[in-house]
């Protein structure tokens, strides 16, 4: 019983270590092909459009309501404490730009575009299409992974900026119509305090997330085995792992940026 437990634990550890190694090899191979071969720009463009079209509505909806909630809660706390809703714009603005914009957009994109990538590459894997790429003179990392990573790296920061704006807009809706804060005040509350570094803090994080999500989802797709069931499993795993990775990396990226003074 105990032996079985440790046996399973050991196997899990070995399997995890092995996939970590394979993951590192894939990233290395991506660097190799990126430097050595022409990038398939047509594929990059197709992927960018797909990510943008698939994720924009969800990113907009989720961040709009997040901004509204932030404004409502800040207003309520401030009202309870000071009888007046102070600094609503400041709280909404900073929260969105530095933290919630990049993280929420990354989570949504993991669930939307990341899952789609894992499912697509997984299906290609179990139907021999990945092997077919090899026999036709190219390589899945070059033809599939690099365009997807590049598309993520360009698209996610753009979605992040969009998320900032919709969040701040959502905050304004609540601040203006519900809390009675004049537009001018709300706006000044944000931009009197916001600096370029505050923006960069969140912006740089979304690049980290873009790399993490795209590599993880491509990896999960390319290592699929076991038919249709395997595709389902690796798609779920891709979403779970990339969302977890976003939240964990968020802490470390923040720590590094704070150490560098970009806050």
């Amino acid at each position, binding site marked *: 019983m105990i032996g079985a437990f440790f046996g399973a634990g050991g196997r899990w550890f070995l399997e995890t270590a092995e996939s970590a190694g394979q993951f590192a090899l894939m990233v290395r191979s991506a660097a*190799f092909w990126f430097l050595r071969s022409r990038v398939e720009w047509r594929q990059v463009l197709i992927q960018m459009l797909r990510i943008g079209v698939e994720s924009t509505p969800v990113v907009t909806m989720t961040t709009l309501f997040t901004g509204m909630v932030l404004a409502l809660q800040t207003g309520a706390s401030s009202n309870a404490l000071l009888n007046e809703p102070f600094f609503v714009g400041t709280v909404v603005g900073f929260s969105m730009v530095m933290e919630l914009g990049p993280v929420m957009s990354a989570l949504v994109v993991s669930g939307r575009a990341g899952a789609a990538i894992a499912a*697509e590459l997984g299906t290609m894997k179990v139907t*021999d*299409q990945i092997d077919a790429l*090899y*026999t*036709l*003179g*190219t390589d899945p990392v070059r033809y599939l992974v690099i365009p997807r990573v590049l598309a993520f790296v360009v698209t996610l920061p753009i979605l992040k900026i969009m998320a900032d704006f919709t969040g701040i807009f959502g905050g304004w809706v609540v601040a203006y119509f519900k809390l009675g804060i004049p537009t001018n005040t709300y706006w000044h509350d944000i931009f009197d305090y916001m600096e370029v570094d505050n923006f960069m803090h969140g912006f740089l994080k979304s690049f980290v997330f873009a790399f993490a999500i795209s590599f993880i989802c491509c990896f999960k797709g390319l290592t699929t085995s076991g038919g249709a069931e395997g595709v389902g499993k690796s798609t779920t795993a891709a979403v779970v792992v990339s969302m977890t990775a976003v939240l964990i990396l968020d802490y470390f990226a923040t720590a590094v940026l704070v150490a560098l003074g970009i806050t």
Partner: protein
Amino acid sequence: MIDAVGVRKSFRHRPVLRGIDIIVEEGETLAIIGGSGCGKSTFLKCVIGLLRPDEGSITVDGMDITKLATEAEIAQYRRRFGYLFQEAALFDSLPVWENVTFGLKYLTDTPRSRFRSIAGDKLALVGLKDIEDLRPSELSGGMKKRVALARAIAAEPSYILYDEPTTGLDPIMSDVINDLIIDLQKKLKVTSIVVTHDMRSAYKIASRMAMLHEGKVLQVAHPEVIKISTNAHVRQFVDGLSEGPIKMKIKEYEPPEDEEEQGRADETARRR
């Protein structure tokens, strides 16, 4: 020339290839026959380097695939091959004509402006027309197979590995494909390995045939010799008989002795 020596391959400690020795001479068509699941596709994948043998060597034009280490070297080795997948493996996201010309981008210097007309020519060779703009999901099984064949030969490779080229085709179309394989061998001096279950096709196209059984080569000989082979295994296979030394028969149905025993058997199965 393809020279395979002592090729062994196991999946999860289950041996599939147990020491295959096969030589395919320049310009020759070797047909590989053998029971389902005996490792024919696995052997082809070892030859083109999609699988790495556990032991043994496979040398093509003086290059030993098992000794190549970097991706770039293996890619270089593979360039000389065309490969027809058993399940076609067409790219779902691309129309038929882009599937056919996919390899030209990477393997040749052909200008893109000519791709469409080349696709039309290659599709005509396999008896297909006016399907260039369809998606693979809109094709029948036999059509997919032929598009995959057109894709495998499009870059005019010097070696072609066919995994069951005529499976799923009607008899007339099978013979058209046989003629195509013979044509490629005669006109372009292509060296090929054809895995097939279709004896008629094997007799017609092969310069030699190899029979695989339990991970080993039983006999390699000219088709006429195989036809009159005295090896009992080969005999049974080419005659297509269920009785013989090769035990492929499904276990005969035996009704369970009593209810209780059946219940116990179920439980053990579940526990596994």
